[in-house]
């Protein structure tokens, strides 16, 4: 597998350095802790919003740091939870009198590290809470989780809590909003190919030329079933069905619809999936209030996609519409 890589061990630091050099006015890179933070942060007048996770899911989460989104992202190595001292130091650096919220997708390794960092920094007088995101309907427990996994739907939780924090909400209110958005967000994904971690240099798992993994996790973990390749509309049906039925989303609901690319699928194909998902929702009386098509939470170079629905109400929609500025930009 051909990759742009020098020393594989330096893959994450090299990426972060490039990210910081490309965004000198808005981002600050703290190499000691793999930390990417807002250049003007921490803002003492708002709750600091921090997300931690393994790397390999870019733009999540280092490339969604910016005004109206994350105040900092604390990444580990590719697909590995960040080390405790990094999370602990990040929490202390981001401490604000209004508190710190640590957002974590529900994976056992990450959960343990962030719970512990929360405990340690609380003991030092920092007001800090954790919030776990678990939007993946595919499986209940998995290789790396107790309970459901957190995947691309975490974008909506981040967007909403960050907007609330910018508006001046206190920590309890920010958490209320985060829990609310998480509770109405559902996702399911599919892999067309495996992904290749830079340090490994070969695919992480075996997936036959004519096979797909339905309900795949964002590290390539098994989902519901290994299926034969099928038409795009059939794939949409198999992803959208479980998502709609899970909440359930009903006739008359207004939703945000996200088609997220897993890293190796062209945006043209994502729009093709979007079109079908949008039409199928309309047939069920579910209207799309906001649409999101592109890469939000990837699995390195995996070909595949996930579909996320968020049930909108005035509060959530208004928070999603607030302005934000991140390094992922066209202009």
């Amino acid at each position, binding site marked *: 597998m051909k990759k742009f890589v020098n020393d594989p061990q330096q893959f994450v630091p090299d990426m972060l350095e490039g990210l910081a050099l490309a965004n000198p006015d808005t981002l600050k890179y703290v190499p000691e802790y793999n930390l990417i933070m807002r250049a003007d942060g921490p803002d003492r007048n708002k709750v600091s919003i921090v997300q931690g996770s393994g790397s390999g899911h870019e733009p999540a989460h280092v490339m969604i740091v910016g005004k109206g989104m994350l105040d900092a992202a604390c990444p580990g190595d590719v697909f590995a939870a960040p080390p*405790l001292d990094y999370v602990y130091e990040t929490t202390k650096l981001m401490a604000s009198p209004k508190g710190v919220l640590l957002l974590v997708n529900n994976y*056992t390794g990450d959960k343990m*590290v962030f719970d512990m960092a929360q405990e340690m920094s609380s003991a030092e007088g920092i007001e800090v809470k954790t919030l776990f995101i678990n939007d993946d309907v595919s499986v209940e427990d998995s290789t790396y989780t107790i309970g459901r996994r957190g995947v691309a739907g975490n974008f909506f939780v981040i967007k909403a809590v960050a907007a609330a924090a910018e508006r001046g909400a206190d920590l309890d209110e920010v958490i209320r909003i985060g829990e609310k958005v998480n509770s109405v967000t559902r996702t399911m994904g599919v892999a067309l190919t495996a992904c290749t971690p830079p340090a490994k240099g070969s695919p992480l798992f075996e997936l036959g030329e004519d096979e797909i993994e339905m309900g795949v996790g964002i590290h390539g973990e098994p989902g519901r079933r290994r299926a034969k390749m099928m038409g795009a509309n059939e794939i949409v049906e198999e992803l959208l069905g479980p998502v709609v039925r899970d909440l359930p989303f009903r006739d008359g609901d207004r939703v945000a619809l996200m088609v997220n690319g897993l890293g190796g699928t062209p945006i043209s194909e994502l729009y093709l999936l979007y079109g079908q998902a949008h039409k199928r929702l309309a047939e069920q009386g579910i209207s799309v209030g906001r649409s999101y098509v592109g890469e939000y939470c990837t699995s390195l170079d995996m070909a595949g996609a996930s579909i996320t629905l968020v049930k909108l109400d005035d509060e959530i929609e208004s928070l999603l519409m607030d302005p934000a500025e991140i390094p992922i930009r066209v202009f």
Partner: protein
Amino acid sequence: MSSTDLADVEFVVRSLAQTAVDKEEAFGDLDAVVGDGDLGYSLARGFEKVLADWDSFKRDDVSTFLQQIALAISSRIGGTSGPLWGTAFLRASAAAKTLDTIDGAAVVSMLRGATDGIKARGNADLGDKTLLDALIPATDELERQLAAGASPVQCRAAFAAKTRECADATSALEARRGRASYSGARSIGSPDAGAAAVAIIVERMVADWP
């Protein structure tokens, strides 16, 4: 808090760390039976860091010292072992914060803090075939010995013997937590690697006690 208290705690941590490093291969073999074989490697990397940083730890009091150990091992041990062992030290540190002297009762309360922390962080309890199945009964035994007026030497010997007895007895249990739980019923017949490792650590600690 006397300097003797801190010296005793330092001995315990140093002995534990040295055993974890020396027994890397043996602990790995224990874990390879039904787990994924990384216990020896994980503990050795974490406690290697403790030994390397030994002189730099703050020693204001027992609590501060243990908190530094928690941070050092959790930062270096990957997977779930790091946060679990780190939490044990962190909760022992929290228990020590309110104590004036490290006597037998204090040791019991620090051990309780540690085992409660592992329970909470790992979502595990007695009978799940984890190191808790050795450490909790051994702590109970220590408490009994103290109540019966046993000497420090007797207490240590009883603690080590109980740890060993209960670690061996985990062979009869089916793993319900951790990577070994993927093996389900296959895990019956072999002791839990974590519990067996704790027994080896405690036996050496007690044998070497100054």
